[in-house]
Each structure stands twice: as structure tokens, then as C-alpha cells.
């Protein structure tokens, strides 16, 4: 069964295009590397950045190992608190990716459900939902997130906020971007609804939710796949921006954004690596996801919803 | 370019001595007498460079159009008739290109022209009418702009004069209150009106040849007849040559003097329309004829040709029509048929002789 599926996949045009696109192959493997290394961070990382007992303030601001004054114990150097940058980045990337993926799952769940309902039911409910989607899209995610998180932080104090940061970030980024999915799914549903097979299954007497999930949803998967890749990249960037502003992950449990933030002031004193190294890690992660998104868009070529 | 006025028109209204090519013959009967055809396509081959392979969309296509002649090209969708039409003006969509062959027009081989020389032919010597008038006109430009720009591109003409010409041409295609339409946008007009505008744009430079690519397919049935009638009237009154692409043999029989039947990128039959309609040789042409609603008794199913046209990537050996042909013999599956001439027609079929009786 699995073998048959694999053969079917290997013979498909998708695999053919993928195996010919060097950029896509390299991007895919880098992404896999990120996922594997970061989610096995406790095994790979030489230090536990969350354990204060292994951190020595005397080790602070050591440059990467290949520079002079570097220390072979710390491959990428240390930050201002003496934490091993390599370990901290591994854990930080894991947090960034978790937030990005969870936020997009939430977006997809909200967006697909609302988009399907809007497209399938139509009428004034459709109008209402799409109007909300329009308005929400025109307020940028980042703007809404900054204001919301800023007010939340001011309201409940920094301490509680730091404990809830992951959940808050996922919720805010997840809720703010649902219209992306809703519009695409709605457009696909409208297109599919016109086709004969939907009429056919309706005539058989299948119930609406069955028609939507068993028959229409599979046909909207390729545009969803394309948006998802780009949306995860966007969510990671949004999280990084919020953390950079001090509205995201705390320094004690840093994501890539908070790492960049904590290192920023040190570029003036020459300790560039504290901010630049996590910055490069972030850019490569986002870049390979955007490249994969471009590749998927070209190959699957779904008519994405446009205004 | 000064020669914006077609020679036929000049011949009628002006001194025939001024234009050499006009001196040969009057408009209607010159086909069998003229020395140089208006358009001559020789051994045209068009390929599409796809991602994984090259597809040949047009093979060994040759035909002529005489001055003032109306030629029909007929075939199912995918037969290559539109590709043939667009390749004349080198307007094939992107992966497509002319891989070999010659297209003579006005003493020049159009396939060898530079982009600049080509744009002096387009719209000036040869105009086109596209399929869907809803898509052909630019939504953000006024009717007037889209008409006069064709004049300005080819003639040294003042804005006032151009506007006058545009309004006159709109009147010629029977558009009511043409002066008002001049300032309107396409979305303010119905589909039939828009196709009239497109025809007016094609006519405004008074070209000797117009290529119309299924000009009525996208329109309502009642309007289809009106547009066809209009085109017929305009061609007859000004002696413009016409290449009419359609999948409808009925339209061909009403509109054209000569017809070409295409199948899977090749010409399979060519001849006087009257002869093709009355006495077709190729089984495919027969199939098309039998499929006409007029040929079927009311209440019975249309006599469609069995099977579908092969995709460009999987054209069978021998005669491309052999899998669907009722008269197929072994030879058809191995050998490409050459043209045989019967009176006015030439036909590429091993079994054509079987039809002569």
C-alpha cells in the first residue's frame, strides 16, 4: 500500500519537477535539517540554556570559535549572559518554529472552517464573513498583534505575561491571519460548487458537511499547501518582530527574535555575533520556506484568490 | 506606412496605374487569373517548446488566399486552425514558435521580418478579429482610444481626422450613435456591440486581409448571425480578403468561397467551399458534415464522429485520423497519405478514391 503510494508519487509530475529544481531540493533539505536538529535540541545541544547552573557570567561575550579569543567549547560564541549561543539558538529556533506552526494550524483551522461555511452557505452570511475578512486583512497582523500584546502586557504585568507568552503569540498570530485561508478556501469552494459532481453527490442525498469535507476539501488542498508554507514563514517573522519589540518571548526562554533583541545593543561594542548569528539563522529558515512556497506555487499553480 | 488603403479599394476609386499589384484584375474573379496571391503559406511548421518535450502543433501547412477571397479554415478544437491563423502575424502564444516554412505577403516572407517590420504589417495590412469580445478590448481604455491608436500607429493622421475616421467606421459596423460610443468604455457595451467594435478596429486601417478567429463562438446565437452577416457585407462591399476560422461547417458554407479542413495539425482537405460541401472526399470532412444539426432528423441524436482528436503528444503513425476513420485500411496505420487532386479539391487520404463514386 505504502509502496504503491510511493510509486504513484514518484511517477507524478510533482516529483519530476521537484527532482529537477535544485533550489527546491536544497531548500527542502535545509528545512528538514532545521526540523530534525531543532526538535532534537536537548540531544544535540552541548549546554542547556534554561539551566542557570551551567551558565557562567565569566564566559560572556566570547566570540565564535573560529575567531581569535574564541573558545572551542562555544562553537558560535556566547551571549551577554554567558550562555552558549549554539545551544540557545537551537532551543530558540525550536520555539520559533513551534509558534509558527501552531499559529498557522490555528489560522488554517479557523480560515478553512469559516471559508467553507461562507462559500457553501453563501448569501448574507458569506457577505458578512468576507467583509470582516477584508477589514481584518487591511489592519496588518503585526499592527493588531503589537497593540493587542502591548495592552495585554500593560494590563497583566510582565511577569504573568512572560509565562503566557507562547500561548498569547500563537493565539494572536493565529487569529489575525485567518482571512488568508478563508478567502482561498471560499474561492475554491465557489469554483467546486459549480462543478457537476457536487450536484451529483447532493442529489444522492449526502449531508452538507459530508459534501464539504469529503468532496470539496480535498480539491482545495493544493492552494492550502501553498499558502501554508508562506504563512509559516510569515508567522515566524511576525513572532520574531514581536519578540524583538519585547512583546514576545522573554530573554530567559528566548526565541530567535528575543535573541536578536538581546544582542542588538552589543553590536556597537563589537560583539556582533550575539545578534547577527541568530539573525542569519532566522533569515535562512524564512528564505527556504519562501523558496519552497514559490516552488509549490509554480508547480501546483492554483488560482489563488486575489482581490 | 503610406499604403494603408487596400489596393482593391484604390483600384475602384482611384487611378489603377498607381498601384502595380492592383493592375492585375478586378475584385471578384481574380482568383484564377492573378499572378501573385495576397497571402501564400508554404510548408509551415509550428512547435511548442514545453517543459519536457517539443510538441508539433502544425505540420506542413500550405495554402493561399487571393485578393478579396474569403477562405474558411475548419476543424475540431485542437486541430491547429487558430495556431495557423495566429502564426501568420507571428502572434502565437509563448512556448509556440514557427520552426520552419514561409509566409509570403506583399512580396515579403513574414517569418523573416524584424519585430518592427512585423508591427507595420499587423493591423495595417492584416487585421485580426478575436474570439471573445469580452476579453479583446482593454477595459481601462475608451473605445475611441482603442480605435484611433491603430490609425496613429500606421498613418500620419491628426487627432481630429482619426476621430472622424473612427466614428465613420463605427457607423459602418452599424453601431447606433457612434459619436457617443467613441467616448465610452468597453464595459458599457454588450457582447455583440463589442464584437462590432472589434470588427471596426480591424477595418479602420482598411487592410487587404482580415483574419477572424471564431468571431461568433462567444456570442448568443441570434447575435452570431448578425455578426456573420455584417462581416459578409463588409467583405463584399470593400473587397477585403478574409480568413475565417471556425468549427462550424455551416458558417463556412455561408461565408466562404474556399475552405480548408484541418485535423491534428495538418490540412486534410482543401477546395472550393461548394465542392467540399457537396462532394467531400476525406472521411473526416464527411464526419463533420454528418454532425451538422441540419443533417440529423429532429429528435435523433447528432451523428458525432466517434472518438476524440489525439493530443499533440500522441498523434498516431500514418494518417492521424485512422483510429476514428470508418474506412480505415492497414496502409492508413503506417503511411502518411499524400495529397490527391480531384477537380478543385486536394485531399490527403488513401481512401479518397473510394469516395469518388
Amino acid at each position, binding site marked *: 500500500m505504502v509502496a504503491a503510494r510511493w510509486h504513484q508519487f514518484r511517477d507524478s509530475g510533482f516529483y519530476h519537477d521537484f527532482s529537477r529544481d535544485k533550489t527546491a531540493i536544497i531548500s527542502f533539505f535545509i528545512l528538514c535539517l532545521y526540523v530534525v536538529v531543532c526538535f532534537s535540541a536537548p540531544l544535540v545541544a552541548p549546554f542547556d540554556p534554561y539551566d542557570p547552573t551551567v551558565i557562567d557570567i565569566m564566559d560572556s561575550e566570547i566570540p565564535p570559535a573560529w575567531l581569535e579569543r574564541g573558545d572551542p567549547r562555544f562553537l558560535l560564541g556566547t551571549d551577554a549572559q554567558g550562555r552558549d549561543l549554539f545551544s540557545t539558538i537551537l532551543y530558540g529556533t525550536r520555539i520559533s518554529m513551534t509558534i509558527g506552526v501552531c499559529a498557522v494550524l490555528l489560522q488554517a483551522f479557523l480560515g478553512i472552517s469559516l471559508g467553507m461555511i461562507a462559500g457553501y452557505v453563501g448569501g448574507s452570511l458569506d457577505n458578512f464573513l468576507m467583509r470582516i475578512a477584508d477589514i481584518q486583512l487591511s489592519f496588518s497582523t503585526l499592527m493588531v498583534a503589537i497593540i493587542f500584546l502591548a495592552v495585554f502586557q*500593560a*494590563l497583566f504585568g510582565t511577569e504573568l505575561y512572560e509565562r503566557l507568552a507562547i500561548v498569547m503569540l500563537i493565539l494572536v498570530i493565529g487569529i489575525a491571519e485567518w482571512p488568508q485561508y478563508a478567502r482561498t478556501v471560499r474561492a475554491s469552494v465557489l469554483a467546486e460548487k459549480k462543478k457537476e459532481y457536487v450536484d451529483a453527490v447532493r442529489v444522492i442525498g449526502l449531508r452538507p458537511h459530508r459534501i464539504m469535507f469529503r468532496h470539496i476539501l480535498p480539491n482545495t488542498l493544493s492552494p492550502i499547501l501553498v499558502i501554508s508554507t508562506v504563512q509559516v514563514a510569515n508567522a515566524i517573522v511576525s513572532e520574531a*518582530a514581536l519578540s524583538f519589540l519585547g512583546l514576545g518571548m522573554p530573554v530567559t526562554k528566548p526565541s530567535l527574535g528575543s535573541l536578536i533583541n538581546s544582542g542588538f545593543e552589543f553590536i556597537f561594542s563589537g560583539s556582533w555575533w550575539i545578534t547577527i548569528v541568530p539573525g542569519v539563522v532566522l533569515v535562512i529558515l524564512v528564505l527556504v520556506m519562501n523558496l519552497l512556497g514559490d516552488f509549490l506555487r509554480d508547480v501546483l499553480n492554483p488560482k489563488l484568490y486575489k*482581490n | 506606412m503610406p499604403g494603408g488603403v487596400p489596393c482593391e479599394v484604390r483600384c475602384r476609386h482611384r487611378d489603377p496605374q498607381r498601384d502595380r499589384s492592383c493592375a492585375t484584375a478586378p475584385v471578384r474573379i481574380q482568383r484564377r487569373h492573378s499572378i501573385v496571391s495576397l497571402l501564400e503559406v508554404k510548408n509551415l511548421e509550428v512547435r511548442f517548446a514545453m517543459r519536457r518535450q517539443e510538441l508539433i502543433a502544425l505540420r506542413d501547412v500550405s495554402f493561399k488566399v487571393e485578393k478579396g477571397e474569403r477562405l474558411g479554415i475548419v476543424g475540431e478544437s485542437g486541430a491547429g486552425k487558430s495556431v495557423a491563423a495566429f502564426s501568420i502575424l507571428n*502572434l502565437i502564444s509563448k512556448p509556440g514558435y514557427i520552426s520552419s516554412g514561409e509566409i509570403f505577403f506583399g512580396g515579403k516572407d513574414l517569418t523573416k521580418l524584424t519585430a518592427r517590420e512585423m508591427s507595420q504589417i499587423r493591423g495595417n495590412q492584416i487585421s485580426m478579429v478575436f474570439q*471573445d469580445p469580452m476579453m*479583446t478590448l*482593454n477595459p481601462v481604455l475608451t473605445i475611441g482610444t482603442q480605435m484611433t491608436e491603430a490609425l496613429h500607429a500606421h498613418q500620419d493622421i491628426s487627432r481630429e481626422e482619426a476621430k472622424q475616421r473612427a466614428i465613420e467606421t463605427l457607423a459602418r459596423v452599424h453601431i447606433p450613435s457612434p459619436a457617443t460610443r467613441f467616448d465610452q468604455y468597453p464595459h458599457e457595451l454588450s457582447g455583440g456591440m463589442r464584437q462590432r467594435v472589434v470588427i471596426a478596429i480591424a477595418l479602420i486601417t482598411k487592410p487587404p486581409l482580415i483574419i477572424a478567429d471564431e468571431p461568433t463562438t462567444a456570442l448568443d446565437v441570434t447575435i452570431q448571425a448578425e455578426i456573420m452577416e455584417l462581416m459578409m457585407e463588409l467583405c463584399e462591399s470593400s473587397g477585403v480578403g478574409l480568413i475565417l476560422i471556425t468549427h462550424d461547417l455551416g458558417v463556412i458554407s455561408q461565408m466562404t468561397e474556399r475552405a480548408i479542413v484541418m485535423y491534428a495539425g495538418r490540412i486534410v482537405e482543401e477546395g472550393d467551399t461548394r465542392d467540399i460541401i457537396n462532394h467531400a472526399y476525406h472521411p473526416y470532412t464527411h464526419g463533420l458534415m454528418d454532425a451538422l444539426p441540419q443533417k440529423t432528423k429532429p429528435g435523433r441524436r447528432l451523428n458525432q464522429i466517434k472518438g476524440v482528436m489525439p493530443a499533440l503528444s500522441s498523434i498516431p503513425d500514418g494518417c492521424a485520423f485512422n483510429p476514428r476513420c470508418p474506412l480505415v485500411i492497414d496502409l492508413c496505420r503506417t503511411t502518411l497519405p499524400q495529397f490527391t487532386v480531384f477537380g478543385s479539391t486536394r485531399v490527403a487520404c488513401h481512401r479518397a478514391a473510394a469516395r469518388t463514386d
Partner: protein
Amino acid sequence: MFAFFVRRLIQATLVMLVISVIAFSIQDNLGDPLREMVGQSVSEAERQALREEMGLNDPFIVQYWRFLQKALRGDLGTSYFFKRPAVDVILDKLPATLELVFGASLIIILLSVPIGVFAAIYPKHWFSKFAMGVSIVGISIPVFLTAILSIYIFSVELNWLPSFGRGETVEIFGGWTTGFLTRDGLVHLILPCIALSSIMLPLFIRLIRAEMLEVLESEYVKFAWAKGLSPKRVWFVHALKNTLLPVITVGGVQIGTLIAYTILTETVFQWPGMGFLFLEAVNRVDTPLIIAYLIVVGLIFVITNTIVDLVYGLVNPTVKLARPQGGD
């Protein structure tokens, strides 16, 4: 045209009302005006009396109505930190932010249109491939990181350009401080403007290219070629206008994002604008200032969106602005 304008105005008012409700509920929950007015020594009974007197015990809707009336007069309270009317504090910083946005928009518009159009017309040209490659990298670098990197390269390492502040400014039209008229001010604008435009520019290049490619494939462009028009006319009269229509809409949507990016850019460059002020206000829990920022930004957002919609309506003939007498 008039009806369109009125409809747009009503919509804008509605959005502003929603923003004001949000702003007011923030104020209601965040700020205890008493804390700022009286010290700890005041007894609970006295506090209650004061609350009653100030109307703080009135129902939400009554308090909101009062808030709205004051807001319409331009009174959004007094900043706790600056001890000045919050609106005045914000408006002092407005020129800095607007000039930053103006500079970045100039970069975006002047570069994205020609590059995007070129990349669509000559997709195989080396420059197009180069521009598209740079664009995808540009999109992948967050604004604050571009800002940090540019500071590190041009200020710290090369020492060519200043890394923070507006530099020397002059006052024009009574109160508007500008950095565009002094050399120092312009030099200070370079890095922040580049950083602010660093994501939008590649985004628009890609968008314009994609739209233009689609338009170039359209039937009406093919028909324009068939008319024998010059390439210039086909590209710039037939294709470009149709390309830019959707781009205008997207531009309107991106205004919100651009404002959000000013917060990031201003933070990195310590640019004395509204975004920087807003973050400071958040850290100080300076509620009136937070509210004032929300309202002012909301206004800017609504006004620019209305302008974008009007421009779109004027440019696109299929939007019924002034032609109630339709076609046939």
C-alpha cells in the same frame, strides 16, 4: 462620485467608531485616573466619592459617550509621563514618522514599478533573474534585522552613516519639523528609509511582475499587438494601467503593515517618531498616550485607505463613480 464619496465616508466613520470603542475599553481597563491624581494617602471612602464625582461609576455607554465627545474636541487626556495633552505629544512626533514613511514610499514607488515591469517584459534577462533573486531574499529578512544589519555595516563597521536619531531638523509651516531640508537630516533619513522599505519593495516588485505577466498574457494585450502598436504603447498604455489597478488595492492594504513597520524601524534607529513613543508609552503604562496613538494611527489609516479607494475609483473606469447612465 458624490454617492461613492459619501458611502466611503460612512464606512470610514464606522471604522473610527470601532477603533474608539476599543480605545475606550482599553482606557477603562488600563488606566485608573485616580492613581495619577491622588496619592496613596487618600482613604477608600474619599476615593469612592471622587469616582462618583468624576462619573467613573456611570454605566459604560455613558462614559463612552463622554469619551467620544471629548475625543471629537481633540481631548484624549493628559499623558502621565509628559504631563501634557496626549494628542499634543503625539502630534509633535507625527512629522518624524510621516517623513520616514514618505521617504520609504518614495523608494518603493520609484523602484518597484520600473523593476517589476522590466522583469515582466524581459523575464529571461539576467537583470530580471537577479532582481527576483534579491527580492525573495529581501522578503525573507525581517525589517528589524535589515535595520540592524545596515547599522552594523554602514555605521559600526564603515562609519559612513549615522545610526540613530533624526539629526538636524528645521521647522517649517509653523510647527512641522523636517529633516528633508538639511544635509544632516537627509543623511539620517537614508538608513531608516531603506530599512522601512526593505520588505515592501521586494513585495511590490514581485507583485507588479506577477500582475504584469498575467496582463501580458491577456487577450486584449494580444489584440493590441495584433493592431501593430509599438511595444512601448502596448507595455505602458495597455498593460501597465491594468497591472497597477490591483497593485493600488494591495497598496491600500499594506498601509497598516507599513505603520507597524515604522514601530520596528523607529525602535532600532531610536527615531523620535510616534512608533517609538508608543512603545515607550506601553512600557510606562501611559494609557492616554496609548489611546492617542491608537486614534491618530486609526485616523491616518482610514484617511489613506479612503484616498486609495478614491484613486482606484478614478483610475478604473469599470467602477461606477460618475456614470449612472450605463451602456446598452
